[in-house]
């Protein structure tokens, strides 16, 4: 066999192994932690640090709102389960060069003070306490709970989606050229049927939808401490 081909194959196998190992280590090393407060609400207290990952970090400084959606499904030993969701919005304010962070948990919304740097943002992330769901139906004495967590990263918010849809529809609408536009008067919105291509524009415009760029899944065993 050609020695060069052997070396090349070995290099490829090594690269694949390294990449797999890196991912495995990253996933295995960092898992979310949970706390049960006195009201029986399950909180995520230590989300794994995903901000610096290369599939996430560039979006944080795009000027758009990056949403981190946390979905949790907790099941006790008897098979009883509860579901909950939380959201963390991070937007980099390009003019002031600060990160604006808002946290939406179970029955709460919180705007955090502006964050000046990425490092500070990482610290804020690690200190986050995100209330997810009440755990009333679950049995705290019967054994550990199995909690499945999914963290999805969505690159823009709903309001940014609506703005972009409107802008897109206005941009692709075919309008007769006008020499002078009346100041202060906006052209008609094509999406509302203002021209002949309204249906097509609406069809195309509605293709601008929020989708998660990436998502991470963890399964954690959580032993609730009775009385806490």
């Amino acid at each position, binding site marked *: 066999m050609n020695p060069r081909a052997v070396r090349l194959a070995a290099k490829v196998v090594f690269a694949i192994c390294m990449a797999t190992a890196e991912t495995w280590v990253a996933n295995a090393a960092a898992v979310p932690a949970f706390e049960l407060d006195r009201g029986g609400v399950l909180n995520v207290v230590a989300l794994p640090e995903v901000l610096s990952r290369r599939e996430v970090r560039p979006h944080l400084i795009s000027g758009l709102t990056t949403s981190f959606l946390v979905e949790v499904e907790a099941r006790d030993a008897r098979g009883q389960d509860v579901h909950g969701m939380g959201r963390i919005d991070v937007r980099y304010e390009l003019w002031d060069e600060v990160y604006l962070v808002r946290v939406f948990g179970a029955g709460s919304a919180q705007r955090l003070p502006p964050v000046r740097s990425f490092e500070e943002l990482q610290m804020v992330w690690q200190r986050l306490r995100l209330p997810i769901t009440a755990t009333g139906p679950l049995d705290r004495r019967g054994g550990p709970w199995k909690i499945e967590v999914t963290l999805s990263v969505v690159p823009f918010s709903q309001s940014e989606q609506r703005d972009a849809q409107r802008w*897109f529809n206005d941009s692709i609408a075919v309008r007769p050229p006008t020499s002078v536009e009346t100041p202060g008067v906006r052209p008609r919105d094509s999406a509302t049927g203002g021209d002949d291509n309204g249906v097509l524009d609406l069809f195309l415009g509605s293709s601008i939808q929020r989708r998660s760029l990436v998502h991470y899944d963890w399964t954690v065993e959580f032993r609730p401490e009775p009385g806490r």
Partner: protein
Amino acid sequence: MSWRASLATFAVLGATALFLFHLFQREISGSWLAFGVHPQVLAELESSLADQKRLARSEPNRKAEYRQRFGRIEALLGHLRVLSFSRGEIARRYELALSGLLVAVLAAVAGAHAWRQAREGRRLERLRSALGDLAAGRTDLEVGVAGRDPIGRVAGMVEEASRTMAKDRRRIASLENLSAWQEAARRHAHEMRTPLTAARLELDQLGRLGPLLGAPEATHLVASVEQEIDRLERFTQSFATFARVPRPVLRREDLGALVADFGELFGSAWPNLTLCAERPVKPVAVTVDREMIRQVWVNLLENTAQACGEHGGKVVLAAGEGPTGPFVEVADDGPGIAPEVLPRLFEPYVSGRPGGGGMGLGLAISRKILLDHGGDLELIESGPRGARFRLSLPRPEGAG
């Protein structure tokens, strides 16, 4: 075109359309979106954002203006970034919309083609059936296939041919019928002429002997019998005339001039009739025997004069040219023709005169004359406000 051929044609057309569509989408439609979210565009916008900030720092008094411009650029950059995230989905939907449109157009074309094929099939089937009927000898066909396309034109020709066949058959039947009547009339005339001649000779001798026998009433009886023999001779002469209707000697004439001449010559021939001759605007050429045609008009006007009696009436002779050829209409404002006579109007020895007057040969002779010309004589309408006859004449050879 068979359905297999149609299917193959549509398959080729569809494949071509899809290929062109794909080419168009790939080379033209997709590129504008790629251009909009080109990394260089985004980089330039980011650079512009940084510029606005630098400008605001260097010119604090215009900070609000730069901040506003920064906001606009930031919004545009945000929109483009959102667009770049959804680029694949937008392109997919765009392709979907265009594909749907293409499929709809192809389906509409295929549907229209199938409908047209089915319609053409039905029309061809009707035409085939009509041609079969025509071949079987049926006449006066209505194919029911209209249109200016070849099928419609052929259907029109089939209908025209069937109408011509029907007309010719009626004409032949009429001629055969009249020929039989003519033969009978000739025999009657021949058979009656000899005994009538003998009877007249005997009667002449009886007339000469009457005074010698001293029977004055015999002279009166002889005169009475002579009158009856005269009447029988007139009948015999009529039979002979009907039996010997001559063949027309055709010459090219202007129908308008014929009608006008007739009006001038015969305008006062019937004291109780007012004759009005209307000639067409343009000359209408016909090939007729002038005298025989006049004879027809005379016969018709004679009947009208008899029917109108002392009340009098008006007769209009109007010449013209219609789609089927030249014609002359003879319309009067008399009492019309008795309904019971209508079915046998043109048969010999049928008379509508009150009291059975006349031999009833005038219309039969007239129709024979027209049929010998290649035309026809028809009653168009009859009622209390008058009757209208139409003399149809063939177009002269070489005329359009």
